[in-house]
């Protein structure tokens, strides 16, 4: 098969990919790799977490499902939405109906056509049949219905205008599967080998070891952001699961892998010198503390603000992650998200004196024998519950310990409570009485994430994602307005207002952004990251010799 060597009109430039050093090209002293492209070969990719099924609502599933499933649209580097399975689309003037024109002749790998019916079926599957709850929660409550108009057109109707809609459906959760496959094959088969129209097909899943993907030779539906036209250049991708960071990174040096995910931050400098590296800052809610505003010491705004001032979060993050992961002062939206308000992020710079003043003002004036502030005989005790191991690596845990020590100096007694997966996901810490602060993140390519996280929780419609238990009607209205505002500038201004409300009230305290880092061997070119969530794309990659 031939590879068209057209000029690369989608370079990996600015925007969210902050560092993409391609050291080999142009002869900057690289030893091993030449520049002659070859076809074929096997990419060995070292990933970390093995998902339960290939497709699903967890980001770990989006990473791999994107290799085998295509989406309707994709997000480009500059944030605009570009064609993929849909070649073009129109929006009705009232913003309620999106009509997509699908690329002609695309087939799933089981031979059935990717037509209007198939697309509509998938939307219905996610929304109404538990197909993908993350997909569902991203577009609820705006989504109404999807209907095929003819073989190449599908219309999606909303019940309220929702400009972020297109950006949100660029995520991997919205990959299109063959309805025939889902309907006729067993649950196990669909879990292990979902059928899509993507650049690769799942050949085999050796549990605990790797998933073997082979190239789809009949691939015709690459996204507009692809770096070349045509099916994948390599024959196979072996998606390995290597949990240990040291092993994973070291496997690059012995040639046991060609690309690895999550480079240990201590090895980042070394990686930048020896390999190609990509650092992706995830849009959405950054890793930030949700502060319990409903019960406990943090019901008092002054105490919350003192908490924010009281520790040098920036220095802690930089030390803990060796400068690789950026500090994020904005608790509700990360710097990689459109609509991010940089001014808001500057608030609460480290000021222990001010923190002390605020606490005195709030009545926490006396200290007990351990140096912890007290008020009415109660110590200023904070339970900080965090997901040990799976949300916070040991480096993240160091950051927390540094903060704990600093908070101790101004009189907070912060207890770090590592929670296991079973406990967190079993709901042990869902009640406000069980924690005072808890860090978490949520990936989303749009500031509309604000609605998911900060929608007020009512008895009629509880919002369990609102971990600050913060019900602010002004905030609610601002976000809803922003969500339906068609003019982007105005919408971003409204999102900015929402971020300001949250920051001023210290309902959340910023910490760092969620990141993905990759190191790629020098002789493997054109591995790039998809913009909305940072998944690696291998269908354009090729080896050089």
């Amino acid at each position, binding site marked *: 098969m031939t590879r068209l060597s057209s000029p690369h009109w989608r370079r990996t430039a600015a925007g969210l990919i902050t560092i993409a050093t391609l050291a080999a090209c142009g002869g900057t002293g690289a030893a091993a790799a030449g520049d002659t492209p070859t076809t074929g070969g096997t990419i060995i990719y070292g990933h970390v977490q093995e998902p339960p099924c290939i497709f*699903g609502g967890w980001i770990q599933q989006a990473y791999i499902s994107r290799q085998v499933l295509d989406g309707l649209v994709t997000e480009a580097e500059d944030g605009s939405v570009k064609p993929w399975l849909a070649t073009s689309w129109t929006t009705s003037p009232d913003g309620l109906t999106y009509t997509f024109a699908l690329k002609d002749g695309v087939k799933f790998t089981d031979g059935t056509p990717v037509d209007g019916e198939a697309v509509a079926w998938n939307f219905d599957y996610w929304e109404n049949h538990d197909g993908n709850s993350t997909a569902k929660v991203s577009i609820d409550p705006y989504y109404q219905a999807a209907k095929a108009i003819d073989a190449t057109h599908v219309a999606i109707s909303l019940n309220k205008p929702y400009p972020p809609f297109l950006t949100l459906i660029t995520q991997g959760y919205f990959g299109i599967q063959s309805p025939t496959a889902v309907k006729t094959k067993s649950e196990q088969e669909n879990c292990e080998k979902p059928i899509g129209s993507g650049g690769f097909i799942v050949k085999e899943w050796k549990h*605990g070891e790797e998933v073997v993907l082979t190239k789809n030779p009949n691939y015709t539906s690459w996204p507009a952001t692809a770096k070349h036209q045509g099916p994948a250049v390599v024959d196979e991708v072996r998606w390995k699961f290597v949990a240990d960071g040291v*092993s994973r990174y070291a496997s690059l040096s012995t040639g046991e892998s060609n690309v690895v995910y999550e480079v240990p931050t201590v090895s980042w400098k070394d990686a930048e010198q020896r390999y190609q590296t990509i650092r992706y800052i995830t849009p959405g809610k950054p890793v930030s503390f949700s502060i319990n505003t409903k019960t406990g010491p943090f019901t008092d705004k002054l105490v919350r603000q003192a908490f924010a001032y009281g520790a040098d979060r920036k220095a802690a993050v930089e030390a803990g992650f060796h400068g690789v992961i950026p500090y994020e002062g904005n608790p509700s939206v990360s710097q990689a998200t459109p609509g991010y308000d940089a001014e808001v992020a500057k608030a609460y710079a480290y000021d222990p004196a001010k923190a002390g003043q605020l606490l005195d003002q709030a009545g926490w004036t006396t200290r007990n024998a351990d140096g912890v502030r007290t008020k009415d005989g109660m110590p200023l005790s904070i339970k900080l519950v965090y997901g040990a191991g799976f949300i916070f690596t040991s480096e993240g845990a160091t950051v927390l310990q540094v903060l704990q020590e600093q908070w101790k100096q101004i009189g907070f007694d912060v207890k770090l409570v590592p929670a296991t997966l*079973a406990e967190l996901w079993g709901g042990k810490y869902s009640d406000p009485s069980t924690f005072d602060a808890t860090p978490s993140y949520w990936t989303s390519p749009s500031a509309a994430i604000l609605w998911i996280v900060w929608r007020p929780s009512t008895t009629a419609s509880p919002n369990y994602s609102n971990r600050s238990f913060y019900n602010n009607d002004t905030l609610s209205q601002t976000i809803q307005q922003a969500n339906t505002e068609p003019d982007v500038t105005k919408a971003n201004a409204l999102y900015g207002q929402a971020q300001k409300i949250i920051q001023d009230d210290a309902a959340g305290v910023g910490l760092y952004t969620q990141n993905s880092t990759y190191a790629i061997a020098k002789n493997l070119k054109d591995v790039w990251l998809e913009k909305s969530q940072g998944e690696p794309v291998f269908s354009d990659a090729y080896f050089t010799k």
Partner: protein
Amino acid sequence: MPTSRSNALGRFAGKVVSSVGVIVAAASVTFFAQLAVPGDRATALMNLQTGQEKKWTPEELAPLNERFGFDKPVIVQYLRYLGGLFRGDLGTSYTQKRPVTEVIGGQLLPSLTLTVAALAVAWVLALGVTLLTVKRGRFLSGLGSTWEALTASLPHYWVGIVLLVVFAVELRIFPIIGGTSASGTVLPVLTLAIPLAGFLGQVTRDEFVQVLEQPFVTTARTRGMSDLGVRLRHVLRHAVLPAITLSGWALGALVAGAVIAENIFGRPGIGQVLVTAVNTRDLPTVTGIVLVVAAIYVVANLLVDLAYAVVDPRLGGAR
């Protein structure tokens, strides 16, 4: 004490029956223990499927509750589960959506290989060091003792990481991501075998020393048997008794060690499956693994008893 054949057969049959009982009991304990873990199972499953941690509304949880019968009374769930066991149906994994037998099956062989090989290597190392150095003068004895004490004190994953960094990363003798290949199995086996060898060696050495003082040893020596002959023919048989008993236990410790070794060396195995299953409260998989391990233990127990009886004839009829 003489044992008649029907006696032995009867004892064996009794053992088989009690083994089945052990397995059922083990499975029951796990079943109820999983229920004691805090949090609601449907919530945990939902969270796993979506990668979020939050509470869900009853409507959102309803399909899961219905499908897996979480909302049925406990006793019904228990009986349903036991019934499935006797049919040989270990259930379907909540999270991987495939039969538990499949989940375990694929991972069992690598773990068994690792565990058995580690035990074998540990025995060879332990016996070797003990035989060569016990009671052969202060220096050699001291050396052997110290070596065993040293290796027994090594934390598993510390050994693993050091071996990995030295032999795989720096010296490149072995692969880093070994998978199930032969060369990829050497380091994991050594990781588990070395500390265990120290432990077994120490215990054997102690018994060895004690037995060397027994009257029958003196008798053998006065009859002109060589030192090595004494060691091998008489003393060894008795000295290995505690170590044999410990081997049964060692298999269990090795499973724990296997999780660590599998993690460090990127090896598939039931250790990893177990940890993930406990973390995601995938009850069918957890109990499936427990049962398989229980079955292995039962077999190991039988072998240990046999070995014990063979080695120490005085105990032949006492059980």
